[in-house]
């Protein structure tokens, strides 16, 4: 077939493909190619040269409007494919990004990883329902590059802000702590060690109780390791003790150094607590040591893994997409005229 005729068919195929997808576009182009080839053959039998016959065939196509060639079973029903594609992509992007926004901005907890994972799965199934697996590989994974970029920018901002900030409370690092080990020790009694997740830790705090065997519990105010560091004696729950500012700074430095904070509650308690302590020294009759150890999950590694996976999948999607397209074109070219 002449270049002009082939170009017209390709243009039509591309237009139909944009409207209803590649499969239908290929069918439309194949049907029309078959038609034109036979038409050109018949026309040549009556005298004209191939060039003339093909020229006539091109003119018979008229103004090529892809919408006219949309097959019945691929015709857009409630709105066209392009709009569906935009909506689906946005749904996927939002379902991928929203959990992270919530994680970073609202709850600051890995609990959002569960609805986040669910929403990602829903988004994937949603996309499969619309486009099938091939489209997931070809297009949805491309979107993941955008998502990765957004996540990278957002998380990098927070991480950099954290590392370089003069904020002494290390908000992010404490916020993303997954495992909190609360270690309490009574100077002259058996020591108790408790390991719990942040969720459990918060639960105990909300329940106004402590794990069995604990003699004291530390509650970083608002979930942050910041002043005032409040703790209480389980034997006298109505009493909340605070560290002085100086001792808080000392504890913080110590925590930064080796992740361990030793607090002498009696010595460092503030006036109201001091009164209580003074009144109850006879009861306690001993110094009250408290050890707090917070173990942090390596959030940087987790984020890096997430970004690498999404970027790799996005790149893989593009590579597969390019390979499939290239192979299809090659097969089309090899097809006998």
């Amino acid at each position, binding site marked *: 077939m002449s270049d002009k005729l082939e170009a017209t068919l390709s243009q039509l195929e591309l237009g139909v493909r944009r409207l209803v997808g590649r499969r239908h576009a290929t069918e439309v182009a*194949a*049907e*029309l190619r078959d038609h034109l080839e036979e038409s050109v053959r018949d026309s040549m039998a009556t005298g004209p040269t191939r060039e003339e016959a093909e020229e006539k065939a091109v003119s018979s196509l008229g103004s090529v409007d892809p919408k*006219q060639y949309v*097959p019945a079973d691929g015709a857009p029903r409630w709105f066209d494919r392009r709009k569906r594609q935009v909506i689906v992509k946005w749904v996927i992007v939002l379902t991928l990004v929203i959990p992270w926004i919530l994680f970073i901005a609202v709850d600051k907890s890995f609990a959002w990883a569960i609805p986040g994972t669910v929403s990602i799965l829903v988004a994937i199934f949603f996309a499969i329902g619309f486009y099938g697996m091939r489209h997931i590989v070809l297009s949805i994974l491309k979107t993941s590059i955008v998502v990765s970029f957004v996540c990278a920018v957002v998380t990098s901002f927070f991480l950099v802000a954290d590392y370089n900030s003069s904020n002494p409370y290390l908000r992010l690092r404490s916020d993303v702590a997954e495992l909190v080990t609360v270690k309490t020790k009574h100077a002259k009694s058996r020591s108790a060690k408790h390991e719990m997740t942040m969720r459990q830790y918060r639960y105990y705090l909300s329940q106004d109780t402590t794990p069995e065997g604990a003699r004291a519990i530390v509650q970083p105010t608002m979930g942050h390791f910041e002043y005032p560091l409040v703790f209480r004696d389980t034997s006298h729950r109505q009493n909340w003790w605070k560290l002085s500012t100086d001792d808080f700074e000392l504890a913080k430095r110590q925590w930064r150094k080796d992740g361990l904070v030793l607090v002498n509650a009696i010595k460092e308690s503030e006036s109201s607590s001091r009164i209580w302590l003074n009144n109850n020294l006879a009861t306690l009759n001993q110094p009250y040591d408290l050890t707090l150890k917070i173990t942090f999950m390596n959030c940087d590694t987790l984020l890096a893994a997430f970004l690498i996976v999404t970027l790799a999948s996005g790149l893989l999607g593009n590579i597969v997409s390019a390979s499939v397209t290239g192979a299809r074109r090659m097969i089309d070219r090899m*097809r006998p005229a």
Partner: protein
Amino acid sequence: MAFRSDLEALILAALGAGPKHGYGIVKSIRSSSEDVLQLGEAQLYPVLHRMEEAGQINGEWVANQGKPSRKVYSLTGRGTKALEAKRKEWAEFSGAVNKLMLARGKA
């Protein structure tokens, strides 16, 4: 005018003689009308797709020996009924026009 969808009627009539592919329909219409009716691809396929969507015809890809497969259209039950209705409609319409056009000296 009652007989509006004349292109659809022509396609239905062409397929009434048996299943055909796109170019076969064009050839059938051309030969049956002794080259009076010429149908271009740009006219044919939009109507074929519309009729397929309406359930009057059914397109099916059929293997073609040594060549890429081709789409062959055939009438469905609805299409056959539509063809009968079109024939009746055309007979009435053409009869009425004939009476008018061919009546000489009666006006």
